[in-house]
């Protein structure tokens, strides 16, 4: 049990993008951590939530883009997104503010970075992570989906975005969608 669990944790951490994501480095307790625990391959589905993808249960909001389409692998892959110097400094500053519990300050700082690099998906993922901290899960998902649309062909960033989306679903008790998003994240993660 311990070896597969370790493997899963490794994949999950990779999916959360430690290398690219100074914001969450060294924070195994962050939301991406438990996301991994639920997506352990081969383990029993959590609380009867089937790992198959189906139509949303009644009462759940319709999923617009979650229908998995086979990824055309012959497409040109994009290089992994990186942060500019200014954004890097601001993301680090936001992390300091976040650690001090100053979530409004961290948000304001991340938004500064967003205005400098509005097309950088990594920043939208950062804002999404903050929305998770603020328990604004629907907005966390929105940020994740925005990041997806800006990282077409960039598997590494897409994996992070899907992980954020998975976390936001799980926080809202939408386990089926969380599972599916986590699966997508894993399938895109660099092995």
């Amino acid at each position, binding site marked *: 049990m311990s070896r597969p669990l370790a493997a899963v944790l490794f994949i999950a951490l990779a999916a959360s993008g430690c290398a690219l994501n100074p914001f969450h480095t060294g924070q195994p307790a962050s939301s991406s951590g438990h996301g991994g625990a639920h997506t352990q391959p081969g383990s029993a589905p959590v609380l009867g939530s089937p790992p198959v993808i189906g139509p949303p249960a009644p009462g759940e909001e319709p999923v617009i883009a979650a229908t998995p389409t086979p990824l055309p692998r012959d497409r040109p892959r994009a290089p992994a997104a990186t942060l500019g*110097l200014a954004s890097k400094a601001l993301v680090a500053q936001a992390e300091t503010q976040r650690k001090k519990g100053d979530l409004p300050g961290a948000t304001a700082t991340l938004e500064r970075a967003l*205005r400098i690099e509005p097309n950088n998906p990594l920043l939208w993922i950062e804002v999404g992570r903050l929305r998770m901290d603020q328990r604004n899960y629907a907005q966390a998902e929105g940020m994740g989906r925005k990041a997806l649309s800006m990282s077409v062909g960039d598997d590494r960033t897409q994996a992070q975005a899907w992980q954020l989306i998975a976390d936001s679903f799980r926080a809202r008790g939408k386990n089926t969608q969380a599972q599916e998003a986590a699966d997508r994240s894993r399938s895109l993660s660099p092995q």
Partner: protein
Amino acid sequence: MAARKLRARTRRQIQRGVAALAVLLFLVAIVVVAVLDHRVTKQFEGRRWTLPARVYAQPIELYVGQALSAKRAAEEIERLGYLAQARADRPGTYWRRGDRIGVFLRAFRFSDEMQAARALDIRFEGGSIVSLHDARGADVPVIRLDPLLIGSIFPIHGEDRIVVSPAQVPPLLPEALKAVEDRKFETHHGVNPLAILRALFVNVRAGQVEQGGSTLTQQLVKSYFLDSRRTLGRKAEEAVMAVILESRFGKADIMNAYINEIYLGQDGQRAIHGFGLASQFYFGKPLAELDLPEIALMVAIVRGPSYYDPRRHPDRALARRNLVLRVLAERSVVSEADAERAASRPLGVAKAGQKSAVFFPAFLDLVRRQLRTDYEEEDLTEAGLVVFSTLDPLLQEKAEDALESELDRQDASGRKVAHGLEGVMVVTTPQTGEVVAIVGGRHASFDGFNRALDAKRPIGSLAKPLVYLSALETGRYTPATIVHDQPVTIKLPNGQTWKPANYDREIRGDMPAVRALTQSLNLPTVNLGLEVGLPRVARTFVQLGLAEEPAAYPSMLLGATNLSPYEVAQMYNTLANGGFRSALRAVRTVMAESGKQLKAPQLEVAEAAPADAVYVLDRMLVEVMERGTGRPARRTLPPGLVVAGKTGTSNDYRDSWFAGFSGAHLIVVWMGHDDNSQTGLTGTTGALVAWSRLMSSITTSSFEPLMPESLENRWIDYYSGLETSPSCDGAAVNLPFRVGTVLPANEACPPGIEDPVAVDPAAALPGDAAATAQPAP
């Protein structure tokens, strides 16, 4: 005897009466003084000036790589009231030598951090920042200029002020006030009887500095507690209160209160109180940075803010300022030489355009409305909130210029219907949903009806993209789907029939959807909308951000719906943002006086429409600009700048609309008459001109979103919709389709094997002469 007794008794009675009266008067006086004392003490101790919320523009971020030329950076620094000097040796100063700028930033408290005063060395090259260092040569990754104060939210006919602490007051100011207004300030007890006598004498003799006779304390009392009626009773009350104030509070407290309280000017309905705001109002910079001639002018204005208004009566103000300087030298507050040098300086009052305040009425109105969802009106007008807004002052200025020059051009056209047009511009940054500029009318500074938010007009063909998006969303339509340019007659529920026509009354038969949208043809759009279903189209309006579904009449398909430019901006922002809806924001953060960050609308992102459908629609809107009704913009736009947009014209040419976006900006323009009469303009001949003028004058980027992986680019014939080869003739157009879509081939010129990959839809265009459509509504 009896008579004497009687007299004595009478005298005693009178004495007693007088004594009683004296006692009574004394008691009354005590009561009056006690009441006044209570009033003075309570109000003064609380020291709660009503502080209107202060609104700042967005700050300029400095970082390596930012597209900002040295020239523009210097202009922005200048706008903030920084003083050009040989060396930037204190906060609020800067120098520029060619491509290098040194600036000593002021300390500024942002909602997220206190930014300390700091010297910076900035180098520019090729229109952007290439290095950014502090005084010790260390790299600075990113830093903000202090933001421009753009106004306050004050009650109608209200007082506005910026409260300053003694530390923020240049020491010369209180000294000058004492020397000119109240020489015995340090020693008197609130009133100065000698000064009053001298004032009478001097005023009779005139010529000298006209002495008011009121001490600073009396002036403060008058402004703080009393109305401006001048009666003897008032004067007495004022004197008593001044004495009470002096007995209760120290001189330093009273001087500080005076500096923050006194009336110093009028800005429309806004009364400028206190030297803190007056410094911004007259010089566009903080009080602490004023020099001798500027301080002398402020002291001159105290005596009569309207009579000595340096903008309206510069000669009077100058004479009075120099008089003040002479008095300061006479009383040894400053040296003779300094006073002389100062007297030779011009007034130095900031130009009207720089004096912040009421120059952004439409924008400030939006700020106020957005804050009203979280705050009570009194919070905004009294609690001293600091509001960090999204306004981009430079862009706002350019938007005003672009609109005004187009309206002037229409005036000069000689066409009667085009004379005296009004217009609106709303500019947003789509990714973050921030409103960066709003022009509410021809006279941007006229604080009247807010057309941008309240003028609801039929949107005309601006509705068409929503019809095509509704179709694309079903998954059953593509840009090549054949639509029918055929007459249609619809029986309305009220028994009338609706018979729309194309703008030119022509019928063209079948054509691909892309052509119908690009050329803004009415009949194919109506036929398509009816096919897709009116309720579905009505829903799309709400999906994109409209608060309520429009009435689902067939005429909705051609834009009979009345919307404000702001509502249009909200919907098109979602299109410009790849189908993600972000509620438009004019406020970034709100801060309490204490520095604590308060509630404000947050940045939101919601997937409103499928990204692939929006991507396909947006690419068709790029075609509008390349070969359709938006084509004339190409004459003005920088070559290679990819933009997307749509024209709109309402019935009988009453409203001229254009809504379009680049990769970084959405601009919505409306032009029309307030009385809704005809303009003779289409979207192309009116609004589009102003739109392209603005779009080409700002730093922006191409609209080049990443194509969703479910789509691929294919070449189709613009007239038949058949798949074709890009090399055939001028009619091939490159558009996105779902991977695996089956497209019938153009037998005359079948698609080649080696389709060139068109990354840039604009660059991929073939010769456009043949394909360019006539501008249409």
